[in-house]
C-alpha cells in the first residue's frame, strides 16, 4: 500500500459528502491504494498471444470480406455506370491473368500461420499453415521454402491445414526462420496455381532445459513428454481448479459459473453440482468423503455428493485444506486449525501466495513457512522465490527463481537447482510431478473457449506444456485431468 496523488477530484468528494467523518473516510480510501494485485506474467503473455492470433485472423477475414464489398459496390446505383465503363478493361485484364497464371477459378488463396514475428515459439512447436481452401498436398509441399534451410516433415491435419515439423525434432534455438510458399508452384485441390502469399516470420526461443521427474528429490530428466492417448471428455464448460477423489473414481472442479462440480472419471454420467455458485477454492478430505470450500465471505464443508453442507465460519479465506481428517483454513491474519487458531506474524494482503502443505501441518506465505504445530516461522531469502508446490510428504518446497526450478527443505535449507526450465506452475502428488510453463508450446487457438475438462487414460508423468493451469494425475496414475484452453 502506498500513498498516492489524487487526480484533483476533491471537489467531487466535497460535493458528495457534507459530513466531515464521511469526507475523512473518503479521503483515506482515495489516498491509499487497495492492496496491489499483480497478474501472473505467464497469463498476461498467454492472453496477449491469443488476442493477437484472434486479431490477425479477424484482420485476414475482414480483408477477404472487404474485397467482396468493393465488388458489390460496383453494382450499387452510383457505381453501376462506372461498372459498365470499366467492364471492358476488367475483362481484358482477366484474360491476361488467365493466360499468365493458369486455370485458377477464383485465383485467390489466403494463408495464415500459427506463428508471428513478435512472439518466440518453442523449438519443438510445429508450424501450422492454414489455407483458405483445400490444397493439393504434393505441389504444396514442394512449394514450401524454409530459411535457414531445414529438413522437415509434413502432415496434413485436414485438406486445408499443413503441419510442418523439423525432421530433427526441433528448430534451432535463438534463430529467426522464414516460411514461404513459392508462387505458382502450390496448387489448390482444383488445380489452380497459388500466387504469391505472405511468408511467415518467426523466432525460436532458447531451448528449454529438461524438467524434473517426480521423486522426493527431483532430478533432471531429459525424457520427452509421454505420448497421450485415450482422451475423453467428462464435462463441458470451463474448469478453474481440479482435484481427484483418493480412489480416482471422480474428480471435483470449479465450473465457469462458480459451482463446485463432481464428474465421474469415466464420463459415464453427467457432472453433478456439489456446492455453489461462488466457490473460489476447495480441498478434498484425505478419505474422499468431504470437501472444504471457500466463497467470497464464508468457508464451509460439504459431502462430495452434495450432502450435509455446513458453514464453518463467515470469513474471507486465502487457502483451505485438511489436517488429518479435519478442515483447516487460512484468513489474512491467522490459520484456523482443528486444534485452534494460529496467528500470523503479519497480516496478508488479498491475493497473497499462500499454500497449506498436503498434511496441513505447514503454511507457505510470502517467503515464510509457519509450522502449525511448533508455531515456529522459517524465513526464506528475500525477495522470496515463486512458490510452485509442496512435496507430497510436506517436507520440501518446489519453487522457481530467475535461474530455474529449485527445491529446498521447508525451512529454506539445502536448496538445489533441479532444472533451468522456466516454469510457471506445478502439481506434485505421490503419483507424479507435472510442471507447466504457461502454454508456451501449446498449439494456438483463436479463442480460449470452449474449454474442456478431460481425463486421459495414460499419465503424462513428466510434464506437459499444453496446460496453463495445473493438470491433476489420479491417485492410481491411470489418468490425468486437465481443463484446457482448447489446445
Amino acid at each position: 500500500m502506498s500513498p498516492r496523488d489524487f487526480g484533483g477530484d476533491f471537489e467531487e468528494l466535497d460535493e458528495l459528502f457534507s459530513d466531515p467523518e464521511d469526507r475523512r473516510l473518503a479521503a483515506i480510501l482515495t489516498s491509499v491504494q487497495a492492496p496491489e494485485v499483480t497478474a501472473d506474467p505467464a497469463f498476461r503473455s498467454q492472453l496477449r498471444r491469443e488476442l493477437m492470433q484472434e486479431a490477425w485472423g479477424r484482420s485476414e477475414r475482414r480483408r477477404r470480406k472487404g474485397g467482396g464489398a468493393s465488388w458489390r459496390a460496383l453494382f450499387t446505383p452510383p457505381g453501376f455506370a462506372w461498372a459498365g465503363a470499366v467492364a471492358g478493361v476488367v475483362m481484358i485484364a482477366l484474360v491476361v491473368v488467365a493466360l499468365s497464371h493458369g486455370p485458377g477459378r477464383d485465383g485467390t488463396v489466403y494463408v495464415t500461420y500459427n506463428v508471428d514475428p513478435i512472439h518466440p515459439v518453442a523449438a519443438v512447436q510445429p508450424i501450422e499453415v492454414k489455407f483458405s481452401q483445400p490444397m493439393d498436398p504434393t505441389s504444396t509441399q514442394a512449394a514450401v521454402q524454409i530459411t535457414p534451410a531445414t529438413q522437415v516433415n509434413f502432415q496434413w491435419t485436414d485438406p486445408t491445414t499443413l503441419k510442418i515439423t523439423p525432421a530433427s525434432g526441433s528448430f534451432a534455438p535463438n534463430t529467426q526462420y522464414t516460411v514461404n510458399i513459392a508462387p505458382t508452384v502450390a496448387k489448390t485441390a482444383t488445380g489452380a496455381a497459388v500466387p504469391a502469399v505472405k511468408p511467415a516470420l518467426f523466432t525460436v526461443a532458447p531451448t528449454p532445459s529438461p524438467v524434473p521427474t517426480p521423486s522426493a528429490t527431483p532430478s533432471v530428466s531429459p525424457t520427452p513428454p509421454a505420448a497421450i492417448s485415450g482422451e475423453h471428455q467428462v464435462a463441458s464448460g470451463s474448469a478453474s481448479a481440479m482435484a481427484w477423489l483418493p480412489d480416482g473414481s471422480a474428480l471435483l472442479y470449479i465450473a465457469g459459473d462458480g459451482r463446485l462440480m463432481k464428474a465421474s472419471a469415466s464420463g459415464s454420467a453427467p457432472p453433478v453440482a456439489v456446492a455453489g455458485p461462488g466457490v473460489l477454492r476447495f480441498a478434498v478430505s484425505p478419505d474422499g468423503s468431504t470437501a472444504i470450500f471457500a466463497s467470497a465471505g464464508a468457508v464451509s464443508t460439504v459431502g462430495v455428493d452434495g450432502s450435509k453442507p455446513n458453514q464453518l465460519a463467515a470469513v474471507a479465506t486465502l487457502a483451505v485444506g485438511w489436517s488429518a481428517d479435519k478442515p483447516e483454513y487460512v484468513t489474512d491474519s491467522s490459520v484456523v486449525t482443528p486444534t485452534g487458531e494460529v496467528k500470523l506474524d503479519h497480516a496478508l494482503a488479498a491475493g497473497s501466495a499462500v499454500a497449506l502443505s498436503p498434511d496441513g501441518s505447514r503454511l507457505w506465505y510470502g517467503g515464510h513457512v509457519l509450522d502449525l504445530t511448533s508455531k515456529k516461522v522459517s524465513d526464506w531469502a528475500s525477495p522470496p522465490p515463486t512458490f510452485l508446490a509442496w512435496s507430497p510428504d510436506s517436507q520440501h518446497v518446489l519453487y522457481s527463481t530467475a535461474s530455474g526450478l529449485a527445491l529446498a527443505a521447508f525451512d529454506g535449507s539445502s536448496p538445489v537447482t533441479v532444472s533451468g526450465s522456466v516454469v510457471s506452475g506445478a502439481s506434485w502428488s505421490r503419483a507424479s510431478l507435472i510442471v507447466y510453463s504457461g502454454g508456451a508450446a501449446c498449439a494456438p487457438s483463436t479463442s480460449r473457449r470452449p474449454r474442456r475438462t478431460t481425463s486421459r487414460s495414460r499419465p503424462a508423468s513428466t510434464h506437459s506444456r499444453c496446460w496453463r493451469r495445473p493438470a491433476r494425475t489420479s491417485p492410481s496414475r491411470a489418468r490425468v485431468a486437465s481443463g484446457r484452453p482448447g489446445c
Partner: protein
Amino acid sequence: MSSLPSHADEVQLVERAKRDPAAFGELYDRHFSQIYRFVYSRVRDQSAAEDVTSEVFMKALRGIGRYQDTGRPFSAWLYQIAVNAVNDRYRSQKPTEDIDSQVAVSDRGPALDEVAILNEEVRQIWRLVETLPAPQRAAMVLKFQEDMKIDDIAAVMGKSPGAVKLLIHRGVTRIRENVGAAPRRVR
C-alpha cells in the same frame, strides 16, 4: 502515477486498433493491469480474475469495430465490459457477507505498530468495501481505487451521475457506520 497519453492520442490508437492488430496489442498493454486489478477486486480469486479478464479483452477485440469515441477514456469502455462480465459471472450469486461479522474478523489480530495499525485500518475499510452490495462496491472501487470521474463511472455502470453519487455516498456511510472507531487521517 505514470503520465497518460492524451485523449487525442488514445482516440487515434483506438481507430488504428479497429484495423491493425498491433495497435490492439498496444491497447492491451496499456490497460491490462488496471482491468485485471479491477476484475480481481470484484472476484477475489486469481483463476476467476483470469477468466473474466480474458473475456473482457476478447469482447473488446470483437466489439472494437463498433466503438465510438464519446469523449470518455477508452478505459471506461473496458470497465463497462468488465462490470458486465463480472455481473454475468455472478448473476445468480447474492451477497452473503454480513458486515458485522467482517468487523468481528478484522478485530482479531496481533498488536501492531503505528504504521501497521494504519495499514490494518485501510485493509479493514477495503474489506468492508468488498462486503457492500455489488453496485455500491463497483462504484466505490471505480471512484477510489481507479480514480475515475463520476460521469465516467456513470457511463460504465449505465446509470445517471446522480445515481452513482448516491451509491458512493451510501457505501461510504455504510462503511463508516460499521468501521467502529473513526479511522485516522492518512498523511
